[in-house]
């Protein structure tokens, strides 16, 4: 700080506390709502302190879901989300590492063409080509499957660029030394490049996991079988299907469970998260 002003410092703390409160507010309300008894919402106003029905609400959602609204047990949807998020994350990391390696460490015809082909995916989010993509997946028989949930989303320009940039900073001498020692490209990739990339892979893992977990439109399009519902899209079914009287105490219990895994990932891996976020966007 340039000058010492106790009053402005106090004002700054007040602004921040208000900001934090505003950011936390919706989640606090959700947690409070998820601990109420079923009849509590009929009285017209929402209570502001937690009730005593947390365990039964969470257990009911975890084990049986809202069958009236066509939503399967949350435990099962969380499992589906986890499988989808991990498949997308690992798939993106694997194919991006391989293609960045090819682009940086080889010279071959059409190299630039492939680079641009990968770049173009940045400009074609699922949202702008909903129907034809759905048709392709339907023709391939991938509706209602984990392959359909993950494979169409694993092409990644940002991850490829990040690894390309990182590989360019790896000292030339490493490659020369490896070649002098007779290491082939795959051995060099596995024993030298991958270990060097661990921090970048971990940072990207955090970002991609959140991306995968929070997918919404895609699971909504291609899952009609409730066995494959993911939790983020399943919640929407709960709020709309039981129209007029969504069972908010149960819906909010599901919301809290759906939001928890990615929030925990950020809280426990904050440094990797910040690194991943600021580097993928450059």
């Amino acid at each position: 700080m340039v000058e010492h002003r106790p009053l402005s410092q106090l004002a700054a703390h007040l602004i921040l506390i208000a900001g934090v409160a505003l950011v936390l507010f919706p989640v606090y309300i959700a947690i409070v709502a998820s601990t109420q008894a079923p009849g509590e919402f009929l009285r017209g106003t929402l209570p502001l302190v937690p009730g005593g029905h947390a365990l039964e609400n969470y257990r009911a959602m975890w084990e049986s879901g809202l069958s009236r609204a066509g939503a399967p047990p949350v435990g099962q949807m969380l499992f589906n989300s986890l499988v989808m998020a991990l498949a997308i994350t690992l798939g993106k990391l694997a194919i991006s590492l391989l293609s960045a390696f090819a682009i940086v460490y080889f010279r071959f015809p059409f190299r630039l063409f492939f680079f641009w082909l990968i770049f173009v995916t940045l400009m074609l989010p699922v949202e702008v080509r909903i129907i034809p993509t759905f048709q392709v997946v339907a023709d391939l028989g991938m509706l209602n499957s984990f392959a359909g949930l993950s494979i169409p989303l694993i092409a990644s320009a940002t991850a490829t660029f990040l690894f390309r940039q990182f590989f360019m900073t790896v000292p030339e001498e490493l490659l020369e030394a490896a070649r002098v020692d007779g290491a082939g490209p795959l051995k060099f990739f596995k024993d030298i490049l991958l270990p060097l990339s661990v921090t970048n892979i971990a940072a990207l893992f955090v970002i991609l996991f959140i991306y995968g977990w929070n997918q919404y439109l895609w699971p909504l399009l291609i899952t009609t079988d409730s066995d494959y519902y993911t939790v983020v899209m399943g919640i929407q079914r709960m709020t709309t299907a039981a129209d007029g009287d969504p069972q908010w105490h149960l819906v909010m219990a599901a919301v809290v469970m759906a939001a928890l895994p990615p929030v925990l990932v950020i809280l426990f891996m904050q440094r990797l998260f910040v690194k991943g976020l600021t580097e993928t966007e450059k």
Partner: protein
Amino acid sequence: MQTKRMTFPGRWLPYALLAPQVIVTLIFFIWPSLQALYMSLLREDAFGLNTSFVGLANFRRLFADTYYLDSLSVTAVFAIGTTLLSMSAALLLATTVNRMLRSRNGYTTLLVWPYAIAPAIAGVLWWFIFNPSIGIVPYVLEMLGYRWNHRTSGTDAMALVIIAAAWKQIAYNFLFFLAGLQSIPQSLIEAAAIDGAGPVKRFWTIVFPLLTPTTFFLMVVNVVYAMFDTFGVIHATTQGGPAQATNILVYKVYADGFVGLNLGSSAAQSVILMAIVVALTVVQFRFIERRVNY
């Protein structure tokens, strides 16, 4: 584009390494996009039996359609509202956090986690808080003399989705603003302080101009976010209503094509959206090449 000075020999290996990425890209990105382009030039009859080539008629229809034009302006209001709200809140919080020494990391942790919340879930959370019959905010507004109802009032519904979308994005903007603030040399600020500039004056004459690159970058990212990543916010809450008041372009493509099965029109809308993404991406990358500066 450069490679390493020394490279591996290999005729097939590089293609094999690229194959998974390229195959996924071709099948699930390029092919559907070409299909969208092609379908945008066709029209199907009501039973899906006949398709005929109609040239640019789908596009001409769209731009004569008041619903579509409304959707364009709704999207503009939504994108600008979300971007302004989220960025100004984040800038205020980031400049304030940047003054702190010991508590900086604590506040940062408390402010960044909403990044992890899916847009759809952010929508449901705010939908609940603003619920006209049991929500807490309408209850307070009622006491202040305003009857909140996002089921009937388009303005209320728009305010709701903007708040939900902006809330989720504050964390992202906050982190980038904080990084930008920390790269401003302290000596500049000290020099201004010695010359007698107070904190407010220092912010507007030194800090804010030096943040221009970050601000510009975030503006593009936020507009892209508001236009393309907020499908979940709309779909999980207002579903475009009431009376199309929150029917943003991305939601309309889905509703017209997937629900309404108007394939030609939906494809034409897809093509227009693609053009918008391409334009925004070009802006973003050109800017990254040479940052806005003096």
